[in-house]
């Protein structure tokens, strides 16, 4: 996977709660056999009119946020469908980190596996960051995974929590499957015991 250590960028404010994965990438664009190429369709319904032209007032269609690597969003971001197309689209758009008061569980995990760091901070902090993000080109945020800290444009430092396994995977760009397979002996031991304990479960069909 793609590693993440640190990002410094302006941040696009998206002050909406419960942004679901159908909003992040409408299902019609999810009919694809590839992981890449979804960036142009990210937030399609918010970003474009039905004829495909851009809605000029939408934050990601405006400077400097067109190039933002950080998104500051509302609560329960990424709810709904489990489609990994959502983080694929966000990453392809250019995002490396998303800051929100809370994330939906499946989406949260999907982010790490695609080089995106989701940062949970208290709602009041996010509201404040949202305001600073709105100030534009000079409002640069820094997010550092090593030290688990976000530094806001006004210089305030906000520490955030990440579980250690996910942190390590992201910092090192670890191949999670390779790592699991390296410990295959443990899986074999488990399976041997399990087949004795629950023989009916080990036989599908």
């Amino acid at each position, binding site marked *: 996977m793609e590693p993440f250590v640190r990002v410094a960028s302006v941040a696009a404010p998206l002050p*909406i*709660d*419960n942004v*679901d994965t*159908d*909003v992040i990438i*409408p*299902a*019609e664009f*999810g*009919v*694809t*056999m*590839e*992981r890449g190429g979804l960036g142009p369709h990210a937030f399609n*319904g918010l970003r474009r009119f*039905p004829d495909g032209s851009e809605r000029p007032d939408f934050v990601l269609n405006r400077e400097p946020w067109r190039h933002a690597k950080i998104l500051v969003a*509302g*609560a*329960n971001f990424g*709810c*709904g*469908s*489990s*489609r*990994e197309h959502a*983080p694929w689209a966000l990453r392809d758009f250019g995002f490396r980190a998303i800051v929100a008061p*809370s994330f*939906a*569980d*499946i989406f949260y*995990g*999907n982010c790490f*596996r*695609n080089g995106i760091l989701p940062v949970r901070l208290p709602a009041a902090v996010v509201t404040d960051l949202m305001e600073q993000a709105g100030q534009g080109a000079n409002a640069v945020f820094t997010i550092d995974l090593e030290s688990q800290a976000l530094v806001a444009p006004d210089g305030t430092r906000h520490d955030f929590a990440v*579980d*250690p*396994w996910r942190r*390590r995977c992201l910092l090192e760009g670890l191949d*999670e*499957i390779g790592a*699991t*397979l390296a*410990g*295959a002996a*443990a*899986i074999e031991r*488990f*399976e041997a015991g*399990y087949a004795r*304990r*629950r*023989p*009916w*479960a080990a*036989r*599908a*069909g």
Partner: protein
Amino acid sequence: MATTLFSKVWDDHVVEERPDGSVLLYIDRHLVHDATSPQAFSALRAEGRRARHPAASLAVADHLVPTDGRAAAPRLAVQIAALEANAREFGIPVLPLGSPTQGIVHVVGPEQGFVLPGLTVVCGDSHTSTHGAFGALAFGIGTSEVEHVIATQTLVQTRPREMRITIAGRPGPGVAAKDVALAVIASIGAAGGAGHAIEYAGPTVAAMAMEERMTLCNMTIEAGARTGMIAPDATTLDWLEGRPMAPSGADWQAATGHWRTLASDPGARFDREVAVDVSGLEPQVTWGINPAQTVAVTGRVPDPEAIADAGLRQAARRALAYMDLAPGTAMTAIRPSRVFIGSCTNARLSDLRAAAAVARGRRVADGVIAQVVPGSGLVRRAAEAEGLDRIFIEAGFQWHEPGCSMCVAINGDRVPAGERCASTSNRNFEGRQGPGARTHLVSPAMAAAAAIAGRFVDVREMI
């Protein structure tokens, strides 16, 4: 020590506890479908990885399949064919398109007895929580995890918190499991279950039939929870016995012996306990763009300005703008032009029976296009054997082939922009049923009633 249903199943599957607090969890069953799997298979192929236990997966196309008897559009056909080719290449059993057992993953899995109590079950689809109805630990995963499961038969997981929702009260005739599910979501909120595994318990749940339990667990994800579970009991065992892939003979004896031990022990502790009373519950209709935005059919569209919580107020404003609804509108004044009876939430035989009971001898209102999409080939044939297809067709409903259809609107079935749909599916998100489509979630009987009346009506007046 008193232990919960969730903990019993979780603990039974821990391969390894890691120093960082994560767990390597063994996965018993994996359902694979057409929409979220191609990238997983390509990555496995690129890395030269194989399926660890191919028979622990079961592949079936559902999201992209056409349901009107016509051929799939070329780009869909390619992806459907890829699922079958990928499954064969990796040795994974597949129920091919056109086979009598094909259907929606979450309908087919239980139907085949592939999903059983006490097992861990995953699928690249958030409504995998459906299978929790059997006392399985079942949750949706992303495509990278699909790849991880196929290659290793495990997933790296962190233990969720646990919540028990105890449901009491007997809703009257015409009030369905779907209404109970919507009421539960409304009571805890669209993100109320975040980070939690939910166990549903209480007399109402105990009295529910298996298919009603599936509807309830299916909707769990709409409350943000990772999974929803119900302890297996006699209802569960009766439903499973004799299914093609369920254990039989001595295996059945051993399995049921284990399943009987799974219920949460008296005194088991949960991180959160919620009680919901559904006596007097009325049929629900959603008015907004998340499933928690629901009200009784006898009620009215709420006024956002009267909502105290700023976040909920803002969300309600957005919802009414998208849904093109004015505050105070009676729900019975809302006129859907489309009706969809289908999806993994409500397309099993009992759902179709409930809808047919309303449709029998009546006619779909002028200007309404109504379609019934059975959840699987087996459901479709069972319905036809009872004559439900005739009832629907004579009433003016379209009778379709099985698939996800208008629940996800990527297979050719969709609600046109600006139109309003009474839908038995699980999500009323913006654009979910097609760009600009407006979705109102209801039970199957309520959907049929809306088709007949041309507006939402209290189905209790029609039964």
